[in-house]
């Protein structure tokens, strides 16, 4: 049977954090989320991106490989689990080993926690919480074929599950959705470019592309805005003004036309 995977598509993400709230609802870690949503650069745009465990396939689970206590187990279906509480010696080797920065040490409970692909749900055929609730399919759960059928591929998107960190290649169970031209993501190169170029690597903000300055009246047919029936606007907006004062006693006269009940 084809393996069900998660497809992360930052271009569809609206930053709503539904996945975070849903992850917190899980019965095995209520109140804690194992998925993270970050603004890419809030100053520049509202773009956001989800991060969660990629469940590395080859090499299998670097976090598990470096674990001296064999606390991180992989189930036969390839899901990399969080540390077994009874075994974990909270050495944080996994935290350093993970190429994606996913495992987190829970200092209070003294063991490592991360996404286990909602094992209670996925092992019985349901989708993981985050992908089930995601309003935008930025987190899609299904087989590769199901992802293709959903149609995104026809608009020039392609999922990638190969990542380079310098010489090291990692192939993961989960995919990140890129464009047709991409075969793999070289994360180290991207990071180095960002550091070397600092802000210059930041793309121009797109928000203002079609904006120009506002020029008051431009000779199109206009009508007057209605006056406020509620508190008299003091002073009238057309004339330049005195400082604002807190709303004075409102005394709309009953004769004012706007006060007639709606027909």
């Amino acid at each position, binding site marked *: 049977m084809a393996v069900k995977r998660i497809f992360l598509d930052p271009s569809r993400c609206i930053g709503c954090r539904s996945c975070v709230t849903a992850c917190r609802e899980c019965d095995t870690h209520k109140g804690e989320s194992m998925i993270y949503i970050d603004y890419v650069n809030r100053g520049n745009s509202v773009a956001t991106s989800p991060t969660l465990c990629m469940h590395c396939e080859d090499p299998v689970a670097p976090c598990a490989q470096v674990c001296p206590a064999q606390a991180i187990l992989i189930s036969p279906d390839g899901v990399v689990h969080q540390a077994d509480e*009874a075994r974990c010696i909270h050495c944080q080797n996994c935290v350093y080993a993970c190429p994606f920065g996913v495992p987190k040490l829970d200092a209070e409970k003294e063991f490592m926690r991360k996404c286990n692909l909602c094992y209670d749900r996925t092992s019985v055929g349901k989708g993981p919480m985050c992908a089930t609730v995601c309003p935008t399919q930025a987190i899609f759960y299904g087989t590769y074929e199901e992802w293709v059928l959903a149609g995104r591929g026809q608009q020039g998107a392609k999922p990638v599950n190969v990542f380079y960190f310098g010489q090291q290649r990692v192939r993961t169970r989960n995919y990140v959705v890129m464009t047709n031209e991409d075969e793999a993501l070289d994360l180290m190169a991207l990071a180095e470019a960002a550091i070397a170029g600092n802000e210059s690597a930041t793309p121009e903000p797109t928000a203002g592309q079609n904006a*120009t300055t506002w020029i008051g009246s431009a000779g199109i047919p206009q009508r007057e805005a209605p006056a406020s029936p509620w508190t008299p606007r003091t002073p009238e907006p057309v004339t330049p003004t005195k400082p604002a004062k807190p709303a004075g006693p409102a005394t709309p006269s009953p004769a004012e036309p*706007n006060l007639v009940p709606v027909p």
Partner: protein
Amino acid sequence: MSVDWHNFRPQGVETYDFHSGRPKETPWDSEEQIDRYVPTHCCYCGVQCGMYLKVAGDKVVGVEPREDFPVNHGMLCPKGATAYQTVNHPDRLTYPLMRRKGKNSPLERATWDEALDTIARRFREIQAQHGNDAVSIYSGSSMTNEKCYLMGKFARVAVGTRHTDYNGRLCMSSATGANERSLGIDRAANPITDMLHADVIFVVGANVGECFPIVTSWLWKARDRGCKLIVADPRQTPIARTADIYLPLRPGTDSALLNAMLNVVIREGLVDEEFIAARTNGWEETRSLALQYDPEQVAKICGLRADAIIEAARLYGRAKAAMIYTARGLEHQSKGVDNGVACANLALATGNFGHPGAGYMTLTGQGNGQGGREMGQKASQLPGERDIEDPEDRAYICSVWGIDENDLPHSGYPATLQIPAMLRQEIRACFMICSNPMVSLPDQHTVERALRGLDLFVVTDFFLSETAELADIVLPGSVWAEDEGTTTSLEGRVIKYNKAVEPPGEARRDWEIVCDLARRLGKGQYFPFSSVREIFDEMRLCTKGAKADYWGITYEKIDAQNGVFWPCPTPESVGTPRLYEERFGFPDGKARFNPIYYIPPAEEPDGEYPMVLTTGRVIYHYLSGNQTRRTPFLKEMAPYPWVEIHQETADRLGIRDNDWVQVRTRRGEMTAPALVVRSIRPDTIFIPYHYGHSQAANILTNPVLEPMMKIPEYKVCAAAIARTEQAPDWAAEVNPAVLAAALRKRHELPSASDSPRPTLR
């Protein structure tokens, strides 16, 4: 590198070392045994997503996605996923409260008898002295159709006042006006699924990603099929970020933009002459007026590049099927109705009605914003979108209710005009339910004065809202999970909430409170209801033969069909998902063009107030935040308001990210931290409005009203902004540790100064 997989796999007891005896306890493991999963819908926005509530014993303990509801297929937004947390919330009101010794005495615990008898006695005293209309009813749309219906009947029959209205007046009433003027039926023209048939979707003034997150799913699926997206919004919203054409227009210039687009459509021969001739009236006037809106000129008004307007109009005009979605951005203006009509004009001129993927609709904000506006709680309306001044409609409703027509009051003040009526003591008492005007009405200082000046102010709510704090009597009501009843979603689909648990403590179901009060007012014979279903049955009888016809809808049909679209006039009918396929809602079956002149905002920027202030919502909060600000995760994510300002403007004014800034308008002033970004127009600032007291953005907003529907101009006013050293009073009340934690969150949330700078170990 490859390794032997078997090293890392659990192989039963052989390798599993139980040396520590027992696994360490994990305090966050859930021990609850779930007794049942109650299928219901979310209590928040108009999408009304399906969900299951998990019930353990007599408590709602969680949520489970419900994948059989065809709108959300299990998807939920963060509000929906945490909605259940309001049910057992420690802030719930569990007994009635009263001020026994006047306005300055504290709210004290009271019995139901004491509270309800006092209300009945005082209402009758005030009415005897000042006339029946001295008591007003102010209700809401975030409650079931049955309750909305009951409030209208309670006002007219039990209290006998003309003045009944609801908070939908502040919500989408402009769209109601536009629908009534252009199309004849006040309902969304299409089901949401129609998005998948559209070639172009044009979203004007609707922050779909944050306010209707699940609708985004349909938008994205449409784009997967090649649909193009045009977005007009002064801020780069999440859907604007990747739109095919994004028009960052100046707030309050929507009707000019829409006229200019119609201008391009006409000049380039993209109008559907056949459709116009066969199915519409009044094209010539609209056409000749639109021809005067040259995109080059309009671009200056809107602060846009003219070629972007032309490109957008071409894209829209050439589509085989195109849809227009609007929301509060376009409706919250002193010309909100005109803006909606301008959208309808554009859609009518291009023949975009009555077939799959073509239409114009408003995305209703409140959970039951659609049902609430047709159940007869509005000032001018009887159930079923009937007109309270129409003799036939009056006679029919009186025959159902069993009252004399002379006893049925005529139309009264809309909600926004109740405030000035309170100030001049024409209204002296008010019964409020499901509303929080101390956050939601503009010009908060005036609203507060009006509400404090009432002789008797009664609020029914399940939390002590900012408004309930001012009340003389507070009645503890129920949340949606404690009652059953129907709502009508933004598509016009009637769905049903199911009861999961009983109200806590002495709290009672809202309809029981209202019926009890009606009995104490001596009108019990008109409110003999012993179940919600009885109210529903009377309600659908009232709508029989009306525009919003619910007659053929039953609870069983809703369950069987996963919702029923009204009109559903007969027991055999399955409902009407798409309107206007054959005829529009006017007697001649034709739609109407209305020429729309551009009207500038009531306040334009000037020397004293050089910026345009616009307000809006964030993903984490629902309306006045009375519920979501009490939900821990949502509170943590957006604990207080902020002021979004463009970096250019901020640099000019010496404002840095996270500085305290004071925003002033002619109504008042408020202080909040700045969020310096490049995703908003440089001439515009934005503040989320979900907060109360000194955090309320509505201290600043302009109460000027739209002439037809009386909706306030929340989305445009002139403002001044300056950096200040003085932290606001609300910051002093917050524990510094909490404030620091919130600032860290804000950094994670709307931090602007961060550039992507990964740390390499």
